[in-house]
């Protein structure tokens, strides 16, 4: 008998923390899929490092969500016993790795946001979130550096790499708007100085993206139509497959300790 999904009391702070944790876990999981398969040994090491950073962020955030919620949930219950509709991550981070260009562009879009976001979150009135932000900001800054260098090389490398990088940008662009959206649940936290309003960060994000894209001889899409839904559990088809793999042991052997 497969174990039932956990119930989560999504108070604004729990929901806020879970959204950040899910972003980190899902993107970290995607990066971990590269392990053993990267274009060079050096890049295999780099992808695993970024994956481990994100996995670490996810664990701290889940533990904090569990503490705030104050029920029987913990990091593993959040990760392994919520269904796709209960996951709260951005659509961007669940997109499949595709080729190396797609992975790097995805990382680039997210890290450029995360770097700004965590830096702003260091001012959070919530001491735990501020501490997690301080650690995550340094990690994100490096991810941004690393991904930017690759986007530049792929864009301005060969014809093939340029084509692949441009395709990745075109395909992933519509998932970037969601990073800057908020809902009613966030608003109270923002007013209380616990969370940061991401909307004002967008111009700076766009500036970073544009500068790197220019150097990479890549074009940013003109379209402003943005996909939404991840924050409320309306995901792409990809997340279900990711979770079925991630959760397989916990679901097959309910209640076991690993």
């Amino acid at each position, binding site marked *: 008998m497969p174990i039932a999904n956990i119930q989560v009391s999504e108070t604004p702070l729990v929901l806020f923390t879970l959204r950040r944790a899910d972003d980190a*876990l899902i993107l970290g999981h995607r990066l971990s899929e590269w*392990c053993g398969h990267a274009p060079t040994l050096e890049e295999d090491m780099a992808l695993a490092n970024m994956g*481990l950073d994100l996995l670490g962020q996810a664990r701290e955030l889940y533990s904090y969500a569990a503490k705030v919620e104050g029920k029987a949930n913990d990091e593993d219950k959040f990760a392994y016993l919520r269904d796709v509709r209960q996951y709260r991550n951005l659509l961007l981070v669940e997109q499949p790795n595709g080729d190396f260009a797609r992975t790097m562009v995805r990382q680039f879009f997210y890290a450029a946001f995360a770097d700004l976001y965590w830096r702003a979150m260091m001012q959070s009135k919530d001491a735990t979130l501020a501490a997690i932000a301080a650690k995550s900001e340094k990690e994100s800054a490096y991810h941004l550096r690393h991904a930017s260098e690759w986007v530049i090389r792929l864009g301005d490398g060969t014809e093939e790499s340029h084509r692949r990088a441009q395709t990745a940008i075109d395909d992933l662009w519509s998932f970037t708007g969601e990073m800057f959206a908020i809902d009613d649940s966030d608003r109270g936290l923002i007013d209380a100085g616990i969370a940061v309003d991401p909307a004002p960060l967008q111009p700076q994000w766009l500036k970073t993206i544009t500068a790197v894209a220019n150097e990479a001889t890549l074009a940013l899409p003109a379209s402003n139509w943005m996909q939404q839904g991840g924050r409320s559990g309306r995901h792409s088809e990809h997340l279900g497959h990711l979770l079925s793999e991630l959760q397989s042991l916990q679901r097959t052997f309910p209640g076991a300790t690993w």
Partner: protein
Amino acid sequence: MYTQALNTSDADDRNVEDAARAAAFQARIGADERIEPNDWMPAAYRKTLTRQISQHAHSEIVGMLPEGNWITRAPTLRRKAALLAKVQDECGHGLYLYAAAETLGSSREELVDAMLAGKAKYSSIFNYPTLTWADIGTIGWLVDGAAIMNQIPLCRCSYGPYARAMIRVCKEESFHQRQGFEIMLTLCRGTDEQKAMAQDALNRWWWPVLMMFGPPDKASQHSDTSTKWKIKRFSNDELRQKFIDATVPQAQFLGLTIPDPEMKQDEAGHWVPGPIDWEEFKQVLAGNGPCNRDRLAARRKAHDEGAWVREAAAAYAEKRKRRQFAQAAE
């Protein structure tokens, strides 16, 4: 971190180019001096080392695959982080080892191409599949345990770059075996299903792990030169026995049964195993293990699909150099 005694003999050792230099070289080895990359060395020493170090490197890289198979399915976030870090370490170890081999004059690319072409060997153990989570525990506990037995003496091997790489590797590996044993202990203290999973994994991995040490001494007439050159400091059987003696009490602690009904303890306290199926070993080395084709295919796929990325980086570096040159000329 896995090296295997696969060395074959080097007949060309006999036509050493310069007898006096060869004697001086052997005297340095005898005095426990380290040989460094630019030092004169017999061609056969260079060849033996290049082969052994590159096989060792290939083993690390191919060895990422069976464990990597479980990174996305690790049952807790703690286990997932540890496994990712461990498999990443193996990548690093492969990288250190390729660098050590490169000091002997072959490029990493040549060495990797030989492996991808099926012309170079890697440890036979990685041609077995990881079917359950207990396999991850067993690999850490036994495969890394066996590897450490092999690698610790290599920290003192005569070739400086190899010895230094092994020191770094052994330092980093110290958590790998503990990680594996902890997984096994958790399974053995868990549900009946988990304990059965642990026993099943031990049953499947035990004999292939014993084969990791290479053929029995009486069948491997080729390690003489490696011993003379202090590349190899213990025989296959010595290391295998050391491993078995260390492992049997650990299995007992876990409450697992070693799948060898003929194993007994001799008067000296050594655990003597039943006969090892060397035909299986030969077949796996010859390419007929359960996963040989899958492993090579996975490495070729990563290599081929990475080609355009490596080309892009090279093209960009070239462009940047030209631009800097043009700027300087202005």
